[in-house]
């Protein structure tokens, strides 16, 4: 890029950044306790012994104090195992979020929680070959809110979820598929990376 072009681009860059810096409606993000927010989420599941998968779901949050929030979520994740078996996870659970800093456009947090999970594995071509189990899981991780306005944020969270239950195992022998339950409980899980959109709907209590 030559100097002439740089001289042309630099004022453009300064004008564009200065005008937008003045005109964002970010406001001061709400951080008071009592706020109830709702939203939607997309999740990528990685490092599962079944393989990687994609999920979708929703959540609501109830803020308990300036430093503590709670996240109540439900999601559905579908994983393709070797193009032969579909592994479906349904999660419903909650996490507690702790904020090291109370305010700001970027608001990082650590979180930990618990959820109930249901897993069903089904042969893609022969739905009669199927097995299911109910279980429980714990999860912990880190994340951050990006407060785009006083009431709206996009959040990215990465947490590891450990299933505290017997795992279902899909086994392949040529074209034959069998789905069995492990004899003992295995501390197996998956890394869930979630992008969520949240809107603060109303304040449930004032203090």
């Amino acid at each position: 890029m030559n100097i002439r072009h740089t001289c042309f681009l630099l004022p453009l860059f300064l004008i564009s950044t200065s005008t937008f810096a003045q005109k964002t409606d970010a406001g001061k993000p709400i951080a008071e306790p009592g706020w109830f927010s709702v939203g939607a989420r997309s999740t990528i599941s990685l490092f599962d012994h079944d393989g990687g998968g994609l999920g979708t779901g929703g959540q609501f949050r109830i803020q308990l104090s300036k430093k503590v929030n709670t996240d109540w979520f439900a999601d559905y994740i579908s994983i393709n195992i070797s193009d032969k078996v579909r592994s479906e996870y349904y999660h419903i659970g909650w996490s507690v979020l702790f904020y090291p800093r109370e305010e700001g456009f970027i608001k990082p947090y650590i979180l930990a929680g618990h959820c109930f999970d249901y897993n069903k594995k089904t042969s893609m071509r022969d739905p009669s070959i199927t097995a299911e189990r109910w279980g429980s899981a714990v999860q912990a991780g880190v994340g951050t809110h990006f407060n785009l306005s006083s009431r709206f944020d996009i959040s990215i969270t990465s947490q590891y979820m450990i299933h505290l239950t017997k795992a279902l195992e899909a086994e392949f022998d040529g074209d034959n598929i069998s789905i069995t339950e492990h004899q003992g409980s295995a501390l197996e899980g998956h890394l869930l990376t979630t992008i969520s959109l949240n809107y603060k709907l109303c304040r449930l209590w004032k203090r």
Partner: protein
Amino acid sequence: MEKIKWVTTIILLILCIYGTAQGNKFIRKGLLSSQLTFSPSYMVSDKQSYFYLHGGLEAFISEKTSLNGETYFLLGNIGAANPAFEYNHSTFFGASWHLNKNDHDFSLGIQPGISFTKLNALKSSPIKTQGGVNPLFSAVVAYKFYFFRFFHFFIQSRFILGQHNYDVPRDIFELRFSAGLGLNINTMKAE
């Protein structure tokens, strides 16, 4: 290098024009905006084209952010003798961030969703296919021009990522395009 130079210049010029222009007449908190149109698409993973009936509703929670809900109903395919899907209906919910001035509105959005899909069984085959639900991730880029208190023009493109995991797995990696005339109404008075 030459391309990067031109793209950078154009982006900065657009930002300058938006940044120095006057305020909005119609775009503000409380604006409800809806669209109903036909949307062609290109399924990158299958190299096939489909078209949908596309409906959407957008609610501005501030001048710069909005919540969106959109649904696509598969009407058919374009060209292919044996389209991969018998049906591939989908619905999305999410939010968008807006750059707007003079009622010209450029937005970027993220919308998680689900699709209801079923593969097209071959006519010669006795095997029936199953329908199922699949999680989707989508990103949306849109431009709208609000030219009247009840109407706007819009153009939108959406990138979709997912997988159909029934019968034979199929990647859902699709680009959808929509354009047309939309309806809008302000539910709140200007401050």
